[in-house]
């Protein structure tokens, strides 16, 4: 299962992947192919059709589903297996976006591109190994805040001068 997000100009960021087969170097092509395919499928869909797509072979067969949501210029795509509820995942995407919004204060596309690591962290608080970990937005935000605090305190104490930039 993976989470992806794509904008309308076909610059896709594979945010998170969780399938051992996707880990090896040789499979990078497959990854790219998945991204392209997914984007292709999702982007040409009308607004008024449903948000679930049955999985093709690429994403692991029909047990898997693509579930996506469209926000302004961005598509958020989750690929999940049949153990998850479709509408539940749709809501999870909403929670994800709302959380991003809270953490970045009015999130925009550039935030996501410039702070990939943060987005990763937020997603990691929600989804772990492709499974839903936490759905409570406040809990997630608390965790992220705690991390930021830790990070800040460490940076403050240990930061060496930025010589090379």
């Amino acid at each position: 299962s993976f989470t992806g997000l794509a904008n309308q100009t076909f610059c896709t960021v594979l945010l998170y992947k969780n399938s051992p087969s996707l880990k090896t170097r040789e499979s990078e092509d497959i990854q790219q192919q998945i991204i392209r395919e997914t984007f292709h499928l999702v982007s040409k869909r009308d607004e008024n059709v449903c948000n679930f797509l049955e999985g093709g072979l690429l994403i692991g067969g029909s047990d898997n589903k693509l579930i996506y949501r469209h926000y302004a210029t961005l598509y958020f795509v989750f690929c999940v297996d049949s153990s998850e509820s479709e509408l539940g995942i749709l809501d999870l995407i909403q929670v994800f976006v709302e959380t991003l919004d809270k953490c970045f204060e009015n999130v925009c596309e550039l935030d996501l591109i410039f702070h990939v690591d943060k987005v990763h962290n937020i997603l990691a608080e929600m989804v772990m190994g492709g499974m839903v970990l936490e759905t409570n937005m406040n809990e997630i935000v608390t965790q992220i805040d705690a991390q930021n605090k830790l990070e800040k305190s460490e940076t403050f104490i240990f930061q060496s001068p930025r010589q090379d930039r």
Partner: protein
Amino acid sequence: MSTFVLAAPIAGKSKEAEIKRINKELANIRSKFKGDKALDGYSKKKYVCKLLFIFLLGHDIDFGHMEAVNLLSSNKYTEKQIGYLFISVLVNSNSELIRLINNAIKNDLASRNPTFMCLALHCIANVGSREMAEAFASEIPRILVAGDTMDSVKQSAALCLLRLYKTSPDLVPMGEWTSRVVHLLNDQHMGVVTAAVSLITCLCKKNPDDFKTCVSLAVSRLSRIVSSASTDLQDYTYYFVPAPWLSVKLLRLLQCYPPPEDAAVKGRLVECLETVLNKAQEPPKSKKVQHSNAKNAILFEAISLIIHYDSEPNLLVRACNQLGQFLQHRETNLRYLALESMCTLASSEFSHEAVKTHIETVINALKVRGVGPLRGQERKGLDVRAGGGAWMSGYSLEREVVAILAEKYAVDYSWYVDTILNLIRIAGDYVSEEVWYRVIQIVINRDDVQGYAAKTVFEALQAPACHENMVKVGGYILGEFGNLIAGDPRSSPLVQFNLLHSKFHLCSVATRALLLSTYIKFINLFPETKATIQEVLRSDSQIRNADVELQQRAVEYLKLSSIASTDVLATVLEEMPPFPERESSILAKLKKKKGPGAGSELDDGKKEPGAEINGGMEPSASTAVRYLSLVSPHPSCSLQSTPSPSADLLGLRAAPPASLAAPTSAGNLLVDVFSDSPAAAPAPCRFVCKNNGVLFENQLLQIGVKSEFRQNLGRMYLFYGNKTSVQFQSFTPTAVDPLVEGGAQVQQVLNIECLSDFTLAPLINIKFRYGGTLQNITLKLPITLNKFFQATEMQSQDFFQRWKQLSLPQQESQKIFKANHPMDPEVTKAKLLGFGSALLDKVDPNPDNFVGAGIIQTKSLQVGCLLRLEPNAQAQMYRLTLRTSKEAVSRHLCELLSEQF
């Protein structure tokens, strides 16, 4: 930090500039890592982070792993975090570093620092490799159930364990901790409960008994959530819906078990389900789509559970009504899910009758808007389809709508033809092969719609651009029934031909091949088109076509049309005989998808109708044979027999010069063909697991058999060898030459169709005169029910789900018996495969055991079968368990198979 890392590539204006910039950066980092000066933690982190980003941009990274591993042992969160991130993204499992990484993880797990523990658990879950499982699978349960573990760690530990279990189930030891995991359902922290439910749902599929207690806990948890006001759960309330994810998960968990036996628990659950259904009728607390989404997510799971239980008629009716409402909803998501649920409802195997009446409820709900019940559905279906033309692989909805709505309730087949042709016109790309195969099947089988269908396709083909599938249907139907509309000058034969031929060049090879067959059929139907069509066939683009198939067809059809007399032509190109009225391949496919006992061979649905249609186009043995004599009818196994030269009238396919009594020098030559000599066991028993061999032998006669089976059909070749040097006279079965010369062999072909499940093998009676005395032999034919077994591959999860669904005592048949042959696993494997079931690897936790799955295909029904064979080498015993959806089948198969070992 990240901005500065990112600035690097972003600064590059073009691709080349970016690559240049990155190479420079990589060189810089490399030199830093190699430098004499030891790097401090911060710089290490910085460079590792840069490497990671460069990798994510799609460039290769071949160094820095060691530095990343070093970061793991840092005691600063940010450094550790980057280290772990790098490891989860970039480390491959064969790496030297695994030992070091595992060591660092071990330290973090033991650190009692919740943040570090979570990082370590995340890393394990994200990598999820077998090595990780080996190292930590026994450690994590301990963390999970320890009393002093923090909530956030428990949550991560539960999911981490789930992940390891999914990758390497054999490495996760069950034990004392399982009962304590179940009690996590009572945890204060909702996040912990959610994670625990996911874990238990997966674990209990394999060990339902170990986790049985979770049912009552889940029910009480669910009821607390469902009955709470939307403010009670505070943070876990999502748009006024209390804990939707947890509710969904709990309902999913309950779907792993049969209805609770304890009346109190059951009562409470029913109450919950009623509340959920009631809430659906309440006015929404918010206009936001999130609110209704969350509410409906729970509702759909509740409905699935109701369907799964299949025991509360009251709830079932309400569920159906609810689905009916959703079917009319303007939100496509809901329509889609409702259709899906409706399918499960419809294909629920155990209460077919009950479900039927419920489906009526759904239809009634649809009536409100539609013209009539059927039109309503049709319209709805097409609406959904037209709007959702981009259903990814489209199949699911197509099948659903077509199968359920049209097939089951089509009373008027012209309506069906209309619907499907419309469907092909509107969304040809998304129509699966089954759909158009099926429409042809229907048209051929019902003469009342043939004229109508011909007219409709003729009209449809007049559209300037029409879908290839339409051309296929059109070609087929006009080839068969074009004569029915030929009277009208607007659709005279030549007009029909020209219309079809105008599409010819735009079509794929397969379609063109089909059209060529249509043309030859036209020559038969309308002699006046012969010259035109021969001209077309003779053209270079056909007769010299680069495609072998097309070329062959063109050449053969041309010859056929010029050589054969009208009579021969008429016989060869006879109208297709009706297809055996079997279950629709579409419905079968649907069942396969949803039904518990049904199979799941992916391409199977395609193959089957393909064989019907293409095989049918050129009359092949099975169709031509249908008109010929019957030899030994049997209540449930009809045999059709004929000497085989007539089997292939066209001779287009290489016809074996079969029963021309090929004289062989000595009868015993035959024995060499079938290497193993007849053993002492009665014939049918020996043939349970194999299809070829010697069926019978005495001093005079030897009968060899060769057979093949597919789906519910089979063909059997019997070879009668005269072992003497004297002629046999008045040899019957009559299909065989009445005179069998000394030392000669004759062949008989039997076509077999399995109509329903059976236990007694059909008999064949052989009579002949040998030197004046009448010989009379009656034999059981080696046809047993398992011959119609179709192997089904499935995952362990599916297997156990189905296994569980077949848990009624009468569905199971078990036998414990002593081994009669040496217990060789390879031999056993071969026997099970010969028996017809698929052998499923890695399903049974005990590798010595064998499990198999398949479907018994009969004309009237399909029976899903699961089997498990447990050898006990010490005791020299086997235990065989069969579970099928039909009692008689379980028993019979169990008997048949148990005699084989």
